[in-house]
């Protein structure tokens, strides 16, 4: 047993992190958040992701892919979640090899989720599942346009990759809260020196690390039940993490200008995708 990242996996993770920092940094994020709605999908970014192998990551090399597995895909999506990268990333990744142009980033693919939510419908070239009669809703997430349609088929792999994004988001929220708690001074000391603030941050890390081992293990076993359980924990870590991060930011956290709300809103959105927490709990109760 060696349940730790390999050298190659570490290198992959930092490679994706660097790529995203360069291609979708804070300025790009703010430009999108502050633009008049609706947000446009950056086709050039999409093709850059294609060139970097983000979508073709799990395709065999003989088919022009990178030939890696689910654990590596999870690491890449964790980074996408950390950077709050917009777009139907999961659907396009899962369409690679099945939909022409998806692997290279030339075709943007979305899918009807089992919740009935359809992200980025208008901006996509291909929609998987039946989106006939889909109606647009006023999306809570300013960076993700949404439609509602009749529920699509459940897809454990989509659930796993979405959970990986939640994991990255949870980790990022924790880091952001810690950075702010070290900088912000009140009562003559950094607020991070107060135990009340410290303990919020500690709990953020605890939730993140439990979710991390669950998500990584699910990527290794690819067991659908384990994937759904990991998603439950990752949803909690991402949503509660963003909430706590907002709390640590105090009044600033309630502003549009701080990034915190963008993480919270996307975490809310991802948590609605795939099976509900109640369904997963029932499934795991029945297994007892």
């Amino acid at each position: 047993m060696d349940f730790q990242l390999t050298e190659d996996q570490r290198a992959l993770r930092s490679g994706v992190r660097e790529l995203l920092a360069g291609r979708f940094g804070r300025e790009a994020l703010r430009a999108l958040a502050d633009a008049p709605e609706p947000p446009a999908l950056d086709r050039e970014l999409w093709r850059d992701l294609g060139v970097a192998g983000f979508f073709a990551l799990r395709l065999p090399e003989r088919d022009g892919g990178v030939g890696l597995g689910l654990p590596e895909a999870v690491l890449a999506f964790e980074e996408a979640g950390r950077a709050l990268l917009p777009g139907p990333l999961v659907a396009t990744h899962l369409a690679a090899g099945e939909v022409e142009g998806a692997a290279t980033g030339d075709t943007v693919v979305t899918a009807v989720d089992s919740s009935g939510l359809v992200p980025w419908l208008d901006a996509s070239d291909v929609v998987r599942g039946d989106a006939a009669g889909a109606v647009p809703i006023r999306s809570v997430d300013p960076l993700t346009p949404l439609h509602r349609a009749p529920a699509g088929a459940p897809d454990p792999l989509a659930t796993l990759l979405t959970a990986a994004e939640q994991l990255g988001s949870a980790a990022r929220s924790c880091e952001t809260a810690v950075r702010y708690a070290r900088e912000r001074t009140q009562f003559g000391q950094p607020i991070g020196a107060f135990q009340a603030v410290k303990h919020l941050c500690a709990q953020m890390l605890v939730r993140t690390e439990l979710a991390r081992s669950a998500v990584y293990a699910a990527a290794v076993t690819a067991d659908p039940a384990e994937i759904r359980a990991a998603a439950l924990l990752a949803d909690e870590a991402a949503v509660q993490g963003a909430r706590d991060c907002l709390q640590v930011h105090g009044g600033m956290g309630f502003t549009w200008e701080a990034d915190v709300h963008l993480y919270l809103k996307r975490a809310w959105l991802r948590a609605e995708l795939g099976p509900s927490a109640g369904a997963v709990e029932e499934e795991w109760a029945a297994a007892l």
Partner: protein
Amino acid sequence: MDLAYTEEEEEFRARLRAWLADVLPHLPPRPDPSDWPGRRAYDLGWQRRLHDAGYAGLHWPVDAGGQGATPTQHLIYLEETERAGAPYVGANFVGLLHAGPTVAAEGSPEQRRRWLPPILRGDEVWCQGFSEPDAGSDLASLRTRAVRDGDHYVVSGSKIWTSHAEVADWCELLVRTTPVTDDMPKHRGISWLAMPMDAPGVTVRPLRTLAGSTEFAEMFLDEVRVPVGNRVGEENDGWRVTMVTLSFERGTAFVGEVVACRRTLTALAAEARKNGRWDDAVLRRRLGRLNVEFSALWRLTQWNVSEAQRTGGVPGTGGSVFKLRYSHARQELYDTAAEVLGPDSLDLGREWNLDRLSSLSYTIAAGTSQIQRNIVAERILGLPKGR
């Protein structure tokens, strides 16, 4: 990332399983929990069997008489012994998991020869004299005094939360050899002593817990003479000597307990199906949630153990992350048990109800949850120290 066990690890598991199947049916009956001499004999007897079969001191270094097993082998050992219903480490806990490893790491060759083999063979029991009535979370403020008198220390003070004190041969004792002054950090001036429990001046008084049992004792020390040769490490360096082992956490601390919790959860579901509470969707979901929780805690255990295996067992602050989540999950487990039992949860003759009482100590013992959060925030996240 690999969750599969190697061929060597699977062989280790198979050998251990075969041995357990062979030896467990022939164990003597378990003593009554209030029969301390009986418990001592039972636990030492088990240790002797482990020793004779080559499993004693599994995780100890080979040059200390141990088996030098990897963290993963240790995890397998704890998992298999728990599954098979083997005896717990019991009275051997302090000897095998703290005092012994401390002597192995910091003791002189003579001290290692004197104290280590009897622990491994199951001949001697150790207890721990660290906490004091006024030194709990703030352990370094301990006040038990040791004054040098020729080739002895004269020790006076009191200790609390000492398990197995009634039946121990030795106590690993933290004492203050230099009084605290304003210009000195209080973790300086502490020394580590091996105190013979039969020395004149040692009084042990059982401490009754809220569970009604006497798992712990208070210890009163009145001018107890301890030979200077029983000091491990330099004088005034006892804090470091102790922490070397306390931080030597290989991620395996709660392996057996997580396995046991998962078994309890299965039994709870069976009971709920039998008594009709299963129809309550809220309770059912709570059980499902706990199943998710403990399965993730098992994965986190495998993660931490693998990390220790790679780093050679370097301090695991990851242990604090695990303990925080696990201790609360365990309390939640027994609160859920009470929900399954309903009015029967008030009957101490029923399974799980005493465990529910015991579980109340989990967020307190070995570092309260509040202290653990400080550790996580300051040592992992790098937040500033403060109040």
